[in-house]
């Protein structure tokens, strides 16, 4: 049985004059210890997905319908007490900015002890010892001293490590990481990614990694969901999606990267912008930016279905495949 199973999740935002749909029919499964990437640009709904999984959406956002089964229990219908049991304890969350996650007026030790004692019956001393062990696991030098320091005394990379240590405190089964390395420098990012990968693999922790960086997804995850305007438009093994993307948006996203073009040449850009939630085009949401769009694309929303090695939501995917083959033959 899968650890997490999301079925037809719809999230809406009740704005003053209308209700907009932020997530539309999101369904996916996550096996125990599996690492899943969610990619997309700003406004695609990837962070909302992360929040919804923990039932953390606050007004005006709400889960309109759908199921989120974590270990067989539906997170959507849980009451506050049940949610508290799950949040932080069995599912942990890591955010982009560690300074927002850490309380600036409490020491690292106080925050770690507080988290532990909220969920486990341990003494203050025992909690501190567990905290030291966890800090050592994330390679923090002299962890005993760090416990008495405040967040502002530490560097960005160090803070993010502490966040990871706090996330691991209660041995969760799933970590949801929302752009965990975006605010960090590349050398620190590489360290943190390696650390997260190592910890997830050795402890059999599932990971949902939300990011806009395809390079990060490629190195960290086994499976990937690509989101656009609140829907999953492509999903499958990360290798397949990176090496042979099927949806024109995924192709565009990968082709737009500077490393996919010869230096100095024009980058292959995707025209236009991601639509806002209030103005999602009819039919396939990507159709105004898509060079393959037909009348069907403009009127009917494509269903996601298996194509080759991946699942893809595109009416024209067969044609796309043919045209690339033709191009290859010509070349």
């Amino acid at each position, binding site marked *: 049985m899968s650890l997490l199973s999301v079925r037809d999740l719809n999230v809406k935002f009740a704005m003053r004059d209308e209700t907009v749909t932020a997530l539309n029919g999101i369904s996916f499964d996550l096996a125990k210890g599996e690492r899943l990437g969610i990619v997309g*640009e*700003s406004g695609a709904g990837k962070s909302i997905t992360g929040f919804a999984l923990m039932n953390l959406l606050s007004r005006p956002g709400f889960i309109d319908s759908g199921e989120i089964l974590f270990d067989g229990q539906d997170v959507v219908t849980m009451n506050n007490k049940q949610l508290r049991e799950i949040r932080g304890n069995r599912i942990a969350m890591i955010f982009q900015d560690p300074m927002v996650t850490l309380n600036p007026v409490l020491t690292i030790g106080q925050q770690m002890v507080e988290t532990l004692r909220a969920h486990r019956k341990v003494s203050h001393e025992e909690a501190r010892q567990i905290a030291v062990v966890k800090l050592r696991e994330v390679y923090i030098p002299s962890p005993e001293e760090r416990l008495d320091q405040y967040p502002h005394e530490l*560097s*960005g*990379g*160090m803070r993010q490590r502490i966040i990871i240590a706090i996330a691991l405190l209660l041995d969760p089964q799933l970590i949801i990481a929302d752009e965990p390395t975006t605010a960090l*420098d*590349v*050398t*620190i*990012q*590489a*360290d943190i*990614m*390696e650390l997260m990968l190592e910890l997830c693999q050795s402890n059999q922790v599932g990971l949902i990694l939300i990011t*806009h*960086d*395809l*390079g*990060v997804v*490629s*190195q960290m995850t086994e499976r990937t969901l690509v989101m656009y305007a609140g829907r999953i438009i492509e999903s499958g093994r990360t*290798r397949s999606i*990176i*090496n042979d993307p099927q949806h024109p948006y995924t192709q*565009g*996203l*990968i082709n*737009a*990267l*500077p*490393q996919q*073009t010869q*230096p*100095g040449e*024009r*980058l*292959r*850009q*995707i*025209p236009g*912008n*991601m639509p806002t939630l209030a103005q999602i085009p009819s039919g396939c949401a990507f159709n105004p930016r898509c060079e393959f769009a037909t009348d069907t694309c403009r009127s009917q929303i494509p269903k996601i279905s298996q194509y080759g090695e991946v699942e893809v939501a595109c009416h024209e995917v067969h044609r796309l495949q043919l045209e690339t083959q033709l191009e290859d033959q010509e070349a």
Partner: protein
Amino acid sequence: MSNMTDQAPLLEIKGLEKKFDLDRGFLETLKLRGGKIRRETRAVHAVNGVSLDVHKGEAVCVVGESGCGKSTVARLVAGLLTPTRGEIHYEGNRIDHLGRQAMRPLRKKIQMIFQNPYASLNPRMTILQSLEEPVRHHNPGFSATEVSERVIDVMRSVGVDPAWAKRYPHEFSGGQRQRIAIARALTVDPEFIVADEPISALDVSIQAQVLNLMLEAKESRGLTYLFITHDLSVVEHFGTRVVVLYLGSICEVSDTETLFRNPKHPYTKALLSAVPQLKDDRPNHIRLKGEIPTPINLPKGCPFKSRCAFADKRCDEEQPKALQQPDGSLVACHAVEEDRMTAQV
């Protein structure tokens, strides 16, 4: 490269230094040390002895991690900050320490693009007003029609519909706003653009749009760029030459191809290996020990020594000078100079 060295550089930076004092006023400098009151000043050494030539038509990229002084270099060149020591020459004339009036003709030639376009456009001015203002300011002789013609021209060239001219910045998306900010820099027909992380805040597909726009402007207007970024894949694509900064000092200067094919400085190597690769299953990055030290009261020796696997006694004592390598790049590293790195690997 050789045809470039024949002519004088457009921009010449010599031994540039910038310190920011941390103490506000005399009282803050007083410290109690061993029972005695002593005066100690603390300063952030943002830029330490950076020398660099930029030739016409180049796109020089400055890379480095946060806090390495890359934005300070940009601001010094654009004349937004005055250097503590060192000189900046533009077309052979010294331009640091110029007064407001003397700086004015230069501001027309050197324009700057910032990371956050929302902060560089006045939210209470329509984009037409924002775009017309610099044209009028730098061309007092222009008639109203000439001004608006120039503005409409530039708007078209950056792909912003002139019909939107009456709108306010908040009505545009991030990518469009950055195009407008670029348009604003281009309206005065500059020669030299200092761009400080112009695409870092944008989504991948929009980054490509803005980068293409900047490349087009380079071709069609013969612009020269000083491009500040932390994104190495952008550097590889956009830059003709790369400057790698660490804690305000130059590690390596090299043309882009050489740098990516054969990085020499241990920091450059670590930096390149840390970029997440799209099609590489097994990341094999060089792990740096420790973190970037603070640039407050820098210790002597090589700034990179605390994180370098090749540091020895000499690195502790003496700051390495940037030395010319056989392939034309400049590298500031004792280990490279003494050929110690190949011996150990």
